[in-house]
């Protein structure tokens, strides 16, 4: 247990500390705030690098894994244990998150220069970074869930950073609530797992819930509807992952999250947070992949992941084709790529999914930051129809954006996107249960190429349409300052370089993540030309070329000059274009069903509250009042009245009797004599005759 593993908790702790300090610093210390945030993250990056180096050296039987656990909460017999773990999966994510985060921190110093809530922004960013790093190293599902919620909080705060804008506030609420729906699934799954496995720690020398002994026990018991317990829990965890990663039913919040500042979109909605869902599935992979020993074929959970991923990929790609906002196109592209990652996980396992996640993180961050510098340059203009012709005015942004676009589209050989997508398609091709995910994957790749070229042409080629805006004087777009363009360059380089680590010829990353047999680790170009691999590469290249050509043909030949001009695709397919532009009206669907249903429930509740409970309260109130009144009346007239009259009569009677006591002894004597005589009379002639 090396020093680095012991101190691994510092990686998330430093950004948290920075967030705490920044929260207290007054707004005017802008420079020191940025410095503190960036410093903390660089420290974390160094530590992450150290940890990564540690994992490289010693490859254990199933890869390097070092665990530190401690008891957090002791309640009688039960003890809730937390802890952190260092393994290849975690190490890779650590490095990716802290490196990309650092670049985005530096970028946002320039981007947010004019904003007066500068320190607050960096405080939230540090908070987010800390939480994300926490998710990565967590060895217990509970600790993971805690950091997962913090990440959700950070995303809410960052989306709604410009809370003055109503749309931003609404978007933040939407994001938070939709992810909460997913988190609910994760939460129920967690509790179910705890009740079944009696521990939430992943790896604890044998007793951990992801270790073989516990997993076989979970698989053995059948939970609800014939599914094994592990499958049921995995599906619930998948629900959480869908929420956070914006998969099909719960993807609506991601496009609206673009209201937040662009570095936020880049960091959270491209690179890290959305990747958390995929990471969660990768972390819980043994549970997902668990099969009752007799069964064959894919485990139901992984089949679900695959189908979900494939469908979302195509679905999002279709919508992206018809969008006009530069960041929304990228948002839908992220949703689509996440679909691909799930597809990779479902068919190829952790290594395939993670490889695409890592590559996607870099080039998607690059694209977002590029869009950011475009918006920055064109004075907050986001509608691509009002952009155009920025090739000459923003050359660096154009160049880096082009690299990113080609990586995303999957231009062969040089760019990382091609290699990671190829791995997924290869795995999907070999997927036994059904060939359809492979076909959807190929279709998605083509669509991706098409909408990226559409966006490139609209934004960078054709005449510059910004000056057509009415009110502003001719605002000439200008290139972003170096503090923004340098990170772009770095990211572009990574987008290219990272691809080479996972090619079939030298699958280092896969072996690193899944500890494949030793022979595969050597560099061997010949594997490239294996029959299946080569054929697939040719197919995907053809598909990408087709997409590019279609894009250029539709938009490149006659770039539009009037922002109000109708879209070429719309001319071709007006109905389909409107459908796609309307995002399949999923929002309206939700609006119509969930929101109204909720509203109905709310009004019902309100009515219930007003009439039923109100009525009861009123009733009780009336009762009490009535009771009080009657008791007052009773007291007033019956008791007092009766009592007083009785007292008065008594007093009067008393006074009469007092009359008897005249004070004159003779009257007493008279009475006495008369009475005795009467008594004598009675006795003598009365009874005892």
């Amino acid at each position, binding site marked *: 247990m090396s020093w680095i593993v012991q101190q691994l908790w510092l990686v998330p702790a430093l950004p948290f500390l920075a967030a705490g300090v920044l929260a207290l610093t007054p707004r005017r210390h802008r420079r020191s705030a940025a410095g503190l945030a960036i410093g903390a993250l660089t420290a974390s990056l160094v530590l992450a690098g150290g940890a990564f180096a540690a994992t490289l050296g010693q490859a254990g039987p199933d890869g390097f894994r070092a665990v530190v656990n401690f008891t957090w909460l002791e309640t009688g017999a039960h003890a809730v244990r937390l802890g952190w773990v260092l393994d290849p999966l975690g190490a890779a994510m650590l490095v990716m998150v802290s490196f990309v985060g650092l670049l985005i921190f530096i970028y946002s110093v320039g981007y947010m220069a004019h904003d007066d809530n500068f320190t607050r922004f960096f405080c939230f960013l540090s908070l987010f970074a800390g939480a994300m790093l926490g998710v990565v190293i967590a060895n217990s599902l509970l600790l993971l869930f805690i950091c997962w919620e913090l990440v959700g909080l950070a995303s809410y705060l960052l989306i709604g950073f410009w809370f003055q804008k109503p749309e931003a506030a609404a978007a933040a609420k939407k994001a938070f609530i939709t992810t909460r729906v997913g988190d609910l699934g994760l939460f129920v799954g967690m509790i179910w797992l705890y009740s079944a496995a009696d521990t939430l720690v992943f790896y604890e020398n044998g007793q951990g819930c992801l270790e073989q002994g516990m997993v076989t026990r979970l698989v053995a018991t059948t939970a609800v509807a014939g599914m094994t317990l592990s499958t049921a829990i995995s599906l619930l965890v998948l629900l959480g992952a869908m929420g956070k990663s914006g998969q099909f039913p719960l993807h609506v919040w991601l496009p609206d999250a673009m209201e937040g500042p662009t570095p936020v979109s880049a960091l959270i909605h491209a690179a890290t947070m959305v990747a958390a869902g995929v990471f969660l599935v990768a972390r819980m992979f043994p549970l997902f992949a668990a099969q009752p020993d007799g069964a064959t074929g894919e485990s139901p959970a992984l089949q679900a992941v695959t189908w979900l991923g494939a469908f979302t990929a195509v679905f999002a790609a279709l919508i992206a084709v018809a969008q006009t906002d530069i960041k929304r196109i990228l948002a839908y592209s992220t949703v689509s790529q996440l679909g691909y990652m799930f597809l990779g996980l479902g068919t190829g396992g952790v290594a395939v999914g993670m490889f695409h996640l890592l590559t996607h993180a870099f080039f998607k961050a690059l694209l977002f930051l590029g869009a950011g510098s475009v918006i920055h340059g064109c004075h907050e203009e986001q509608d691509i129809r009002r952009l155009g012709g920025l090739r000459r005015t923003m050359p660096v942004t154009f160049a880096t954006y082009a690299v990113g676009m080609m990586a995303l589209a999957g231009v062969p050989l040089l760019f990382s996107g091609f290699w990671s997508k190829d791995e997924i398609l290869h795995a999907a091709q070999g997927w036994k249960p059904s060939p359809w995910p492979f076909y959807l994957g190929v279709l998605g790749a083509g669509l991706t190429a098409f909408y990226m070229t559409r966006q490139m042409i609209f934004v960078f080629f054709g005449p510059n349409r910004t000056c057509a805006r009415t009110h502003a004087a001719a605002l000439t777009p200008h290139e972003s300052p170096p503090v923004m363009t340098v990170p772009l360059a770095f990211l572009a380089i990574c987008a290219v370089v990272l691809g080479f680590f996972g090619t079939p010829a030298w699958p280092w990353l896969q072996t690193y993540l899944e500890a494949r047999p030793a022979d595969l680790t050597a560099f061997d170009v010949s594997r490239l030309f294996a029959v299946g691999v080569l054929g697939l590469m040719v197919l995907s290249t053809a598909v990408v070329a087709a997409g590019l050509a279609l894009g250029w043909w539709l938009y490149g030949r006659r770039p539009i000059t009037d922002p109000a001009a109708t879209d070429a695709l719309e001319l071709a397919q007006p109905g389909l274009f409107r459908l796609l532009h309307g995002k399949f009206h999923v929002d309206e669907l939700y609006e119509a069903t969930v929101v109204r249903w909720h509203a109905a429930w709310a009004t019902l509740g309100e009515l219930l509250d007003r009439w039923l409970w109100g009525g009861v309260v009123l009733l009780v109130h009336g009762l009490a009042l009535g009771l009080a009144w009657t008791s007052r009346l009773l007291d007033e007239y019956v008791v007092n009245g009766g009592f007083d009259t009785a007292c008065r009569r008594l007093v009067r009677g008393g006074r009469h*009797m*007092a*009359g*008897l*006591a*005249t*004070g*004159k*002894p*003779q009257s007493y*004597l*008279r009475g006495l*004599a008369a009475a005795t005589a009467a008594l004598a009379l009675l006795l003598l002639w009365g009874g005892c005759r």
Partner: protein
Amino acid sequence: MTPLERYLVVAALLFGVGLAGALTRRNAILVLAGIELMLTAANLNVVAFWRHGGHGDATAGVMFVLFIIAVAAAETAVGLALIISIYRHRRTTHLDEVDTLKG
């Protein structure tokens, strides 16, 4: 009328006169005198019964009357002392004026 009844009737009449006096006279002393009369009537009754009412304990009647006489003497002494002290405070012996114990 048997001799006994004669004595009893006389005693009753004496008692009645005594009571009438006690009830009607205003002066406290006379009320006391009335009471004395009643006591004498009672004594007369006792002796009459002792003498004529069958032989009973030979000395009972006499003893009884002796003690009554003694008590009557004590009572009169104290009564008159009271009357004198009342007179000294109220300057009057008229009973109907001494009625501060009125209810």
